[in-house]
């Protein structure tokens, strides 16, 4: 199976996991309590997120906590910014063209 960040965030459960640990680092057990699916299923999602490097482990005494890997998360947030900027510029220019058309025609 392909392992990239976009594959990872295509799944709603994995997006929900990311939202949860964005607030605080969590243990696999604490995470699983938020979902109806089996502990095993949740753990599989955690594994995928981990392989995609979107989350990382933090050893806390005997417990493992998962936290966001912000560097990787930023890659996802970033990609849309240039796209948004391009459309903003483009449509602001369209405003100007429309304004000109208005004065040309009754």
């Amino acid at each position: 199976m392909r392992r990239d960040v976009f594959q990872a965030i295509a799944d709603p459960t994995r997006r929900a996991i990311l939202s949860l640990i964005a607030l605080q680092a969590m243990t696999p057990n604490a995470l699983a309590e938020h979902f109806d699916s089996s502990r095993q299923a949740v753990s599989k999602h955690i594994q995928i997120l981990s392989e995609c490097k979107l989350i990382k482990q933090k050893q806390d005494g005997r417990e493992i906590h998962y936290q966001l890997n912000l560097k990787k998360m930023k890659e996802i947030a970033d990609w849309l910014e240039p796209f948004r900027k391009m459309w903003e510029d483009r449509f602001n220019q369209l405003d100007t063209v429309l304004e000109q058309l208005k004065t040309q025609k009754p």
Partner: protein
Amino acid sequence: MKTMSPIEIIKDLPNKKLMIIRKFEASPERVWKAWTESHLLDQWWAPKPWKAETKTFQFKDGGQWLYAMVSPKGEKHWCIVEFHNIVLSKRFQTICFFCDENGKKDPSMPQMNWKNEFHATETGSKVVVEISFSTEADITKIIEMGFEAGFTMGLENLEHYLMVSSN
């Protein structure tokens, strides 16, 4: 200077779709005109500092628009937009792909399918652009292109946001 309407972008990655929504203070007919006449398209289609230059243009079902995105250095990237399912002043669909100056398709670059809708509103019109990609590989490619461009732009707000949310 009047304020610009905000742009709304909706991501639907599982379905390989992106939607762009924006309101304009002009009737759907006038917005339609700006989208479907090449001398007008040339004035706004390319985001600054790029320029759009039309080589050929035929707005009809199955017709094509062959144009170049010209960089400030004069570098040209050629694209074809093929028009389909035109419903006057309401909507049309396109197939877009990168090509050479003769319109020969570049198979290494992603193809996109666009659905452009023009809705009347109380103050003018609302344009809904839906871009769908045929394969996951295509959307990934566009995303990668976005990455490259993204690195060259200042994204301090986002960094700030991510810093705050990390604490």
